[in-house]
């Protein structure tokens, strides 16, 4: 089987032999038997550490969960600086978690949580911060300061949590460069290895924002304020 790997802007082809292997196993085969300079990040091998996200034929995958076909083109994630080969610098992407205030502010006395309450953000809290959604997001082409899909999902994960005390603060944190900058194109949804749909979470955040009196600034720019008489498109 042939694997084509994008290295510093050039495609390099490798012949690999392990059968029925994951992409990560094949990358390890190349590194340990053919070319020790090939660089990639890896960790758990079981899709929970988020280290090995990369793109195959233009689509984001976890190398440890993808079984390659001969001729596949393997590239690093987009929208993040490439450090070397398939290794990217996640620092700026991760900094948006802070912008989005994706953390808990809990009451002194915690409320009772039913299984139904817990199911509300069960999937969102499966996020492994692999960066696949961030790479797939087209908004970064026009706005590099966009808070982005994973940080917004993680914001919603706390906003939707019954224990959360500071919903208003969290909603305020994602108004600028946040939920309204998303085009709802949905590119982030199919690439998530954990089955999370950031687009839907952003939609929920928009609804919650509307309830709290925020509105889409794009509409606010046209005439200032809600006009219930005529829908604006």
């Amino acid at each position, binding site marked *: 089987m042939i694997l084509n790997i994008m290295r510093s802007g050039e495609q390099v082809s490798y012949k690999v032999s392990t059968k029925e292997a994951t992409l990560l196993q094949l990358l390890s085969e190349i590194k340990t038997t053919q070319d020790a300079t090939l660089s990639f990040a890896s960790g758990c091998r079981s899709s929970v550490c988020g280290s090995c996200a990369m793109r195959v034929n233009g689509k984001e995958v976890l190398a440890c969960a993808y079984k390659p076909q001969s001729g596949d083109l393997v590239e690093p994630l987009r929208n993040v600086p490439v450090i070397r080969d398939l290794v990217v610098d*996640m620092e700026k992407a991760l900094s948006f978690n802070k912008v989005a205030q994706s953390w808990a502010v809990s009451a002194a006395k*915690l409320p009772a949580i039913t299984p139904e309450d817990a199911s509300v953000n069960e999937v969102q809290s499966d996020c492994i911060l692999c960066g696949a959604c961030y790479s797939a997001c087209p908004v970064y082409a026009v706005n590099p300061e966009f808070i982005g899909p994973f940080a917004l999902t993680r914001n919603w994960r706390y906003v939707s949590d019954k224990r*959360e005390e500071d919903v208003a603060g969290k909603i305020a944190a994602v108004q600028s460069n946040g939920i309204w900058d998303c085009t709802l194109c949905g590119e982030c949804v199919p690439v998530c290895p954990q089955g999370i749909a950031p687009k839907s979470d952003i939609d929920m955040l928009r609804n919650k924002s509307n309830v709290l009196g925020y509105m889409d600034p794009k509409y606010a720019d046209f005439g200032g304020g809600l006009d219930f008489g005529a829908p604006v498109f």
Partner: protein
Amino acid sequence: MVDVLVIGSGGAGMVAALAAQEAGASVAVVSKTYPTRSQTCMAQGGINASIGEGDSVESHIADTLKSAQGLGDEAAIDKLCREGVEAVVWLDSIGVPFSRSAESKIAQRRLGGASTDRACYAQDYTGLKILHSLYDSCLKAEIEFHNEHFLMELIIDDRGDDRRVCGAVFKELKSGELKSFYAKTVIMATGGYSRVYDHYSTNATGSTGDGLAAALRAGAVVSDLEFVQFHPTGLKNASILISESARGAGGHLLNAHGDRFTDELQPRDALSRAIDEEIKKSGAVFLDIRHLGENFIDHELPQERKLAKLYENVDPVTDLIPIKPVAHYTMGGIAVDERAESTLDGLFAVGECANHNVHGANRLGGNSLLELIVFGKEAGSSAAKAAKEYAEVQVSEKTEAEVEQLLAAIKSYTNEVDFYQKRTELGALFYRNAGIKRSEKGLLTALEQVHGMQHQLPKMGALDGSKVYNTNLMEFVEFTNMLTLAEAMLAAMLERKESRGAHARVDFSERDDVLYNRHSAVLLHNRRVEIGFTQVRAKVQEV
């Protein structure tokens, strides 16, 4: 310069950092990976706390002591179990999305060796969700992280009689530069050393014992290294973990003839031996969870189904899962006292790299996540307190110069021998000779081979000469760390001439309380391994 330097950003490191900061210290966390990529994310089963109806702290203590088989420190276990209840309440308050019972309580399940349903869980993502909640809490607390910095050496402030750990030298992967971080106290939270078993381990590729090896080189005592827990159910081909919760929920173990052959909820040491014997006898062992039903499997064990399909081409809903026991958790670690301080002044340790003597000869499932919370808080507050007692440390660039020299030496290594191949050999050798069952002959053979590899190091080396993000070089350094640990582990395995918990000697099959109701203790003296034994602490007597 900060008050407290935390090395490692997994669960233990982040809890320690939060606790140190809360105690008023300035903190920096330096780690070879990103916080959410650590080993903690792989913990599936749960975190023990006696919050359930009918359960008690005493019962949790009794189960833990029993499993530790004479090597559990009663005072430490008392603290672990007593503070466990509060630890889970704290996790609830920082937003950990635990699964819930119909009564709106944190859901709990029974793991092996527990007398009741005690492990609080979040589906089979307990470690992942705790780790991410801790990460989010650290963002809120504005903890300073330095990611992708590889630990090379601890820095010692050496003033003759007064010798203190005061920082560490790291190699920043991105720039390739060496960076020294100075601090008044240092907390080691770098994880375990199961990757010595290479492909025969459930662990992430980074569990190479770098912190333990650095602590040993700096002169710290490391204890109970012979106790390596084999998880009964790793996937047969990939050694990927299938959680104990699969058995806790009623999963069966079947031999090649399709028959059950043992109690599936025994502690991990005994069960791993039973499975190992059965594989040798009938040829194969399978985990059977088909009778639990698709709905239950998808809801409670979503990872297991995905991983079994990916690595073994079987669907647990309709097929048997082929398994084998593999190295999973290292009970041994940097010897620490009740304040989590090591034998070196200024160096604290927590998590899998430390030995708080709560697991003894065999860890109970659900106690390691608990350990990193309870003792993470202890390490953080103790290190912060100790930092206050010290004036400025004496900054010396000597260690960084030594590391520079070492890296220059590695550059001159000849690359006649492939260290990746040796790493694979080391893993297979340890699984065979220093694994589930051990004998003097096998251990001596292993020691000879480890010594051989150490002598061959100058014939190995890194093929990649890049300064930027050189994982080849880092993996070589990790391999040298594993060889250091391998030698120390074998010394302890050879010296403990009895069978107890995870340490099973075929030539000394009985437990010997007269000679070995003690912790093994290893230190490096002039680069040579020295081994002795120390007493087990009993419970502090209440007056």
